[in-house]
C-alpha cells in the first residue's frame, strides 16, 4: 500500500544489482538529494550547522570509513581518533605550506596520506586478528596522539601546541575560519560525503566488497578459494584510512577551526565512531549514516530536553548520555548486531505486508 513493490521486477542482472532496485526507494533517494543540495543551504542557520548537520556529515564519512574496515572486512580498529588526527594535521601542514592550492585538494591529499599511515598500522593484521588486532590499533591511537603533541614540526612550532585553520575559499566563498557562513560549511561537507558515499557503495557492492566480506566471514576459506588476504586486508585499511583522513581534515578545518590533538582525537573519538557503526549497522553504508545521525543527535536531544526543558544540570545530562549509549551498545550487540540498518530492513518487510502480520 504505502510501499509498492509488486510488479517491480528486474529484467537484467544489471538492473538487479542496482543500489535501489525498487523504484520507490530510488525516488526517495533522489528526493533526499534534492532536499539536501537545493533546499537546506537556503534555510540553514548557524546553530543547526554547528550542532547537528556539519558534525553529522563529517562523522558519517568517518563512519563509512570505519565500517569498511570493521563491518565489511572484519578488521577491528580502535585507532580512529588517531587516524582522524593524521588527516587533520596533514591538512594543516598542507594548508600552511601551499596556501594557493585549493582546500578541496588538500583534503583529498590528506585522505591519501592517512590511507598510507593506516595501511602501515594495518600490517599486523596479517599475523594477528580479531581482538588482538584491536589492541594493536590502540597502540597506533596512543602513539599518534603523542606524536602530534610532542613533535613540534606538526604544529609549526607554535607555542600553544594548537593548530589553527587559516581562511580558505572555494569558488569565492569562505569555507574555513571564523567568518564562514553556515551554508558554506554545510555544502563543502555535503559534497565530500556524497562522493564518499557513492564511492564506498560502489566498492562494497562488487568484487572488492566480496573479497572483504569473505575475509571477514572466514579468512582461511577465503584464501583457499583464491582471495589474496594481504591485498584484501591492506586495501580495506587503505580505503578506510582515506575516508577517515578526509573526515579528520574536514573536522579540523571546517568544523573546529582550531584544535589540540589530545582532547579532540583521543580514544573517546575512536569509541564514538565505533559506536556509530555498531548502532547504525555493521557492514552497511546506510547504517553508517544512521549511526552517525543517532550519535550526533542524542546529546543534542538530551541537552535540549533535560537541561533546557527540565532544568537539570549538564553534568547529569552527560552522565545519562553515557548510560544510554552504553546500554544501547549492549542491546544492539545482543539483539540486533546489524544495527539500525537491519531494524530498518525489517520495518520495510513489515510495511510490505501491512496490515497483515506475516
Amino acid at each position: 500500500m504505502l510501499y509498492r513493490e509488486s510488479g517491480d521486477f528486474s529484467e537484467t542482472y544489471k538492473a538487479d544489482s542496482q543500489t535501489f532496485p525498487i523504484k520507490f526507494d530510488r525516488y526517495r533517494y533522489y528526493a533526499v538529494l534534492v532536499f539536501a543540495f537545493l533546499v537546506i543551504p537556503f534555510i540553514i542557520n548557524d546553530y543547526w550547522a554547528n550542532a547537528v548537520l556539519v558534525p553529522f556529515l563529517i562523522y558519517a564519512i568517518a563512519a563509512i570509513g570505519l565500517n569498511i574496515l570493521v563491518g565489511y572486512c572484519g578488521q577491528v580498529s580502535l585507532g580512529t581518533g588517531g587516524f582522524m588526527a593524521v588527516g587533520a594535521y596533514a591538512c594543516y601542514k598542507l594548508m600552511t605550506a601551499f596556501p594557493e592550492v585549493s582546500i578541496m585538494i588538500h583534503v583529498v591529499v590528506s585522505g591519501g596520506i592517512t590511507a598510507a599511515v593506516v595501511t602501515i598500522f594495518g600490517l599486523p593484521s596479517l599475523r594477528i586478528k580479531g581482538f588482538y588486532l584491536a589492541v594493536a590499533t590502540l597502540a597506533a591511537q596512543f602513539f599518534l596522539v603523542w606524536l602530534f603533541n610532542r613533535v613540534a614540526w606538526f604544529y609549526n612550532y607554535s607555542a600553544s601546541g594548537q593548530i589553527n585553520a587559516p581562511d580558505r575559499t572555494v569558488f569565492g566563498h569562505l569555507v574555513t575560519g571564523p567568518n564562514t557562513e553556515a551554508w558554506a560549511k554545510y555544502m563543502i561537507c555535503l559534497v565530500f560525503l556524497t562522493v564518499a558515499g557513492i564511492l564506498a557503495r560502489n566498492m562494497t557492492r562488487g568484487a572488492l566488497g566480496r573479497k572483504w566480506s569473505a575475509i571477514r566471514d572466514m579468512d582461511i576459506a577465503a584464501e583457499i578459494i583464491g582471495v589474496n588476504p594481504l591485498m584484501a586486508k591492506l586495501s580495506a585499511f587503505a580505503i578506510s584510512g582515506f575516508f577517515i583522513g578526509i573526515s579528520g581534515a574536514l573536522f579540523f578545518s571546517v568544523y573546529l577551526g582550531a584544535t589540540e590533538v589530545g582532547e579532540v582525537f583521543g580514544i573517546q573519538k575512536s569509541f564514538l565512531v565505533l559506536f556509530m557503526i555498531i548502532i547504525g549497522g555493521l557492514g552497511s553504508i546506510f547504517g553508517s549514516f544512521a549511526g552517525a545521525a543517532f550519535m550526533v543527535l542524542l546529546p543534542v536531544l538530551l541537552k535540549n530536553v533535560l537541561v533546557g526543558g527540565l532544568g537539570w544540570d549538564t553534568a547529569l545530562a552527560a552522565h545519562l548520555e553515557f548510560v544510554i549509549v552504553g546500554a544501547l551498545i549492549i542491546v544492539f550487540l545482543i539483539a540486533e548486531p546489524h544495527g539500525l540498518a537491519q531494524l530498518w530492513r525489517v520495518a520495510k518487510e513489515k510495511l510490505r505486508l501491512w496490515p497483515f502480520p506475516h
Partner: protein
Amino acid sequence: MFDQAESFVTADGRTIGAVMMEMKNITLRFGGVVAIKDISFDVREGEIRAIIGPNGAGKSSMLNVISGFYHPQEGEVWYKGARRPEMKPFEVARQGIARTFQNIALFEGMSVLDNVMTGRLNHMKSGILSQAIWYGKAEREETENRAVVERVIDFLEIQHIRKTPVSRLPYGLKKRVELARALAADPKLLLLDEPMAGMNVEEKEDMSRFILDVNDEFGTTIVLIEHDMGVVMDLSDRVVVMDYGKKIGDGPPDEVRNNQAVIDAYLGVAHD
C-alpha cells in the same frame, strides 16, 4: 587401462586424459605427529579419484597439501607436468584448483548468490579505481560473471534460494551452495572433502548425480574424500586408500575392494 600414458575412453564413454597431478613421496609432519608418510599417487585428467580410509588417516591433510594450505616437509607436488613450487593457497586456487570443505566453509554473512559469486573472484580483474567508479569496466565484469554464476545456480537447482542468507539454509543445501561456489571458479581440478557427510539417501543421490554431471559435462577432474563405500565404488574411477598416514591401496574400486590390507584396516568383512 590406467597404466597407459595417453588418454583413453572408459566403458561408459568418458575420456580420461594424461596424468594431471602427481603427489611424489609426500611426508607431512605436525611437530612429532606424522600425518602423511611417504605417499605417492597420481590423478589423471577427467577422472574421478576417491581417497578413502578410517578417520585420522590423513585424508583431509592430503587435500590441504594439494590446496597449498599445508606444506609437506618432504616430497613434491607435480601439476600439469611441472614441479609445483611452494605457494600460498590463493596462488594454488588461481591455478584452477577449487574445493569444498568437510565442515562447511561458506561465508555466513552473505547470501547464496554472493557466496557463489566469490567463486568468480579469480576471474574478476578490475582494480580498485574501476570498482570505485563502477560504471563501465566494473559493472560490465559484474554482469558477465553474474551470468556465469547463474548458469551454475541453474545447474545445481538452487535458484529459489539465491537471495537467502546462507546462515538460514539447512545443511544439505549449504553443501550444495559450497559445491556451486567451487564450480563457479571454473576449476580444472575439484577437491571435495566428504561431500555426502550428514546427508540422507535422497540427498546423497542428488549430490552423486551432480558430481557425475560435473565430470561428464565440464570434464572436470575430481578428487573426493568419502566414507560411504557405495558412493565411492559407484562414482570413482580409481581409489587411494590411506591408513595412519600411509597408502595401503591404489587402483580401480574392484581391485581395492578385494585388497586384504584394505579389508583388514577399513572395509571389514560382511557378517551374516
